[in-house]
């Protein structure tokens, strides 16, 4: 059956499509501009910032890669993966204990963990540097792993706890009747039921760890240990910056997250919709 749209309906659709197209341009154009400028020279970039590159060679991308971006990328990937696993696992286990197990002072424990949300990273910076220096963790991979995990546990636990608390108690009782241990009930039953929120917190943690700047800037130095956000600033100098190389570095930095997004787009949208927006 063909429905005839009213004139107002057509106008509304035109406006909607125009708006959406504008939105696409606003999002895509800066990214495209960044990629294109990675192919230019400094003179081209400043002379004709919006023109297409004169040559399509990969020199700037190779230069960025050789100037430390390969190291920054490796560190960023490792820190992001390990801290995501550690944070999500510890938070999920904590949320399980707080919501599904009768333990003394569980409300107090909840408040203490959630109290961590109130602790601004900048406030803790100075004592943390002192502690990490004395422990020999300063400028190590472990420093970032511990910090990224510790500072995200309160928020992640808060989200998973809010989801777990609504799961029916009968599930635990049924598992117990079937002889499942606490670990089995958590690993085989509760955790799979929390899949939407787990996906959501994984996404949020990846975005946090990939883009975090303050801790990475203060607790690391040198190309071997720095992450992408800090390392990319090393490509810029007060007395002369090869901007196309910086743009190339930014493209390399953005690529893994963009690829991850397209590969897991379905989970991203569904995870955020089902998890946080439940």
């Amino acid at each position, binding site marked *: 059956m063909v429905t005839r749209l009213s004139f107002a309906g057509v106008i509304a659709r035109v406006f909607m499509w125009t708006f959406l197209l504008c939105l696409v341009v606003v999002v895509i154009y800066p990214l495209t501009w960044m990629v294109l400028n990675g192919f230019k*020279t*400094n*003179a081209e*970039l*400043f*002379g004709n910032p919006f023109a297409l590159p004169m040559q399509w060679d990969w020199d700037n991308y190779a230069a960025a890669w050789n*100037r*430390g971006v390969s190291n920054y990328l490796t560190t960023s990937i490792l820190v992001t993966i390990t801290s995501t696993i550690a944070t999500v696992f510890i938070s999920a286990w904590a949320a399980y204990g707080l919501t599904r197990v009768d333990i003394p002072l569980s*409300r*107090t424990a*909840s*408040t*203490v963990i*959630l*109290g*961590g949300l*109130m*602790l601004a990273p900048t*406030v*803790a*910076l*100075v*004592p*943390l*540097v*002192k*502690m990490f*220096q*004395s422990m020999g963790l*300063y*400028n190590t991979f472990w420093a970032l792993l511990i910090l990224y995990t510790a500072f995200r546990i309160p928020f992640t636990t808060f989200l998973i706890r809010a989801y777990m608390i609504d799961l029916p108690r009968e599930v635990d009782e049924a598992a117990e009747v079937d002889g499942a241990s606490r670990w089995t009930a958590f690993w085989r039953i509760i955790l799979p039921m929390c899949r939407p929120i787990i996906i959501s917190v994984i996404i949020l943690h990846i975005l946090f760890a990939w883009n975090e700047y303050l801790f990475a*800037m*203060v607790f690391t*130095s*040198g*190309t071997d240990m720095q992450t992408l956000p*800090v390392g990319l*600033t*090393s*490509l*810029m*100098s*007060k*007395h*002369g*910056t*090869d*901007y196309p190389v910086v743009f190339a570095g930014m493209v390399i930095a953005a690529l893994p997250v963009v690829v991850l997004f397209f590969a897991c787009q379905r989970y991203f949208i569904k995870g955020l919709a089902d998890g946080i927006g439940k």
Partner: protein
Amino acid sequence: MHAQRFTALTALAAASALVLSGCAGGNAAPAADITAEPEYSGTLSILTKFAGEPLGPYFENLAAEYEELHPEVTIELIQETDQSVKDKTKTLTASGALPDIYFTWAGNWAQNFIDGGLAADLTEVIEPGTEWGDTFGEASLSAFQVDGKYFGIPLYNNGKFMGYNTKIFDEVGIEVPTTFEELIESCAPIRAAGYEPIAFGNKDGWPALHYLQQLFAYNVPSDVLHADFSPATATLDDPGYVTSLEQFKTLVDECTDTGTGTNGVLYSTAQEALAGGRAAMYYQEILEFDTVTAEGNVVTPEMFGIFPLPVPEGAKGNPGAIEGSPEGYLINAKSPQAALAVDFMKFATSLENATVLSSPPYGQPSTIVGAVTPETSSAAVFDGITQVNEASELIIWLDTVTVPEVADAWLAGGEALISGGSTPEQVLESVRNASHSAE
């Protein structure tokens, strides 16, 4: 209600414990003995401002060579950029984890460490007349001199000059201006020939202060200017200030294409306008000379010339003053490795290593006498550093020579003047207020 309050207090206590636990204790380190015979063992930590290309490898190579000479010594480098070194230094200072050797600017930044007892007094080893001290230019050493004591090790020198495209000057048929008024007059014919007379970007605020400080040095008597740097003695009422601010505003309005929109332009955009042959002049530091004439740029070393910002007619200050100052390193007064730190810095400032620092790709004009020569450095860098060494007075950057509150007022004032938001008198009044508050 009671239970809720208890849990809230518990949470607060836990969070506080997390913060405070790191504050407990402290390292009671012995005072630095810089004259002791160095023990060539242990770890030496160094905070540099040389992260990234092309400067990054300089200290890495130095460290590797020093470790090879002294196998028992390990050098721990913390390399930061111009942007991140401030935050890193502040955090390390606050946490009592300042490295054995650390970067510093001259002026108020170094003064804070000296006043705080965090910089070792190096007078015995570096003052003029000592073996090491005599290898430095005396003006460079005096940049880190306080109350007759020498605290800093100047590594490289710097100064501000107007860089110009000689080809455009020839094409337009103008000579290098000898007065500020001639400079302003030269802008119209340059613009008529299709070029931007002076490229200027003030997005970061400090480029305006570089113009202002040089004009202050020309227009305000030297003793008054120096007294005005310190809030305790500042009056900031010399008519030379308003004259300088007016001259600066004239330059922005008459000689830049960006005019009142200059605050939205990056200094690097301006630098690139000269390097790309689109602008005739750009006011820049010696450290930028080799970047402007780097391979691939329209402006080649042969097309590049420099001159100090011309002196205004009838100026009552010091016409021979050049704005600039060395950047260098301090040694942690609490470092148990102070003698070794001094030994490393002697190695870093040897003529051989100083020459390497002054040559491409580093191009940082060393403060060591004889390190910058026409053979090792580009003609412009050699010319610039010669003029700095011959200047009757070196005036430190306005944003580092005074206290942060006053520097911030100057930054805001410079921006307001460019945009037309404030008159010279209003800018000076706001700086005066900031100085009174800081007093």
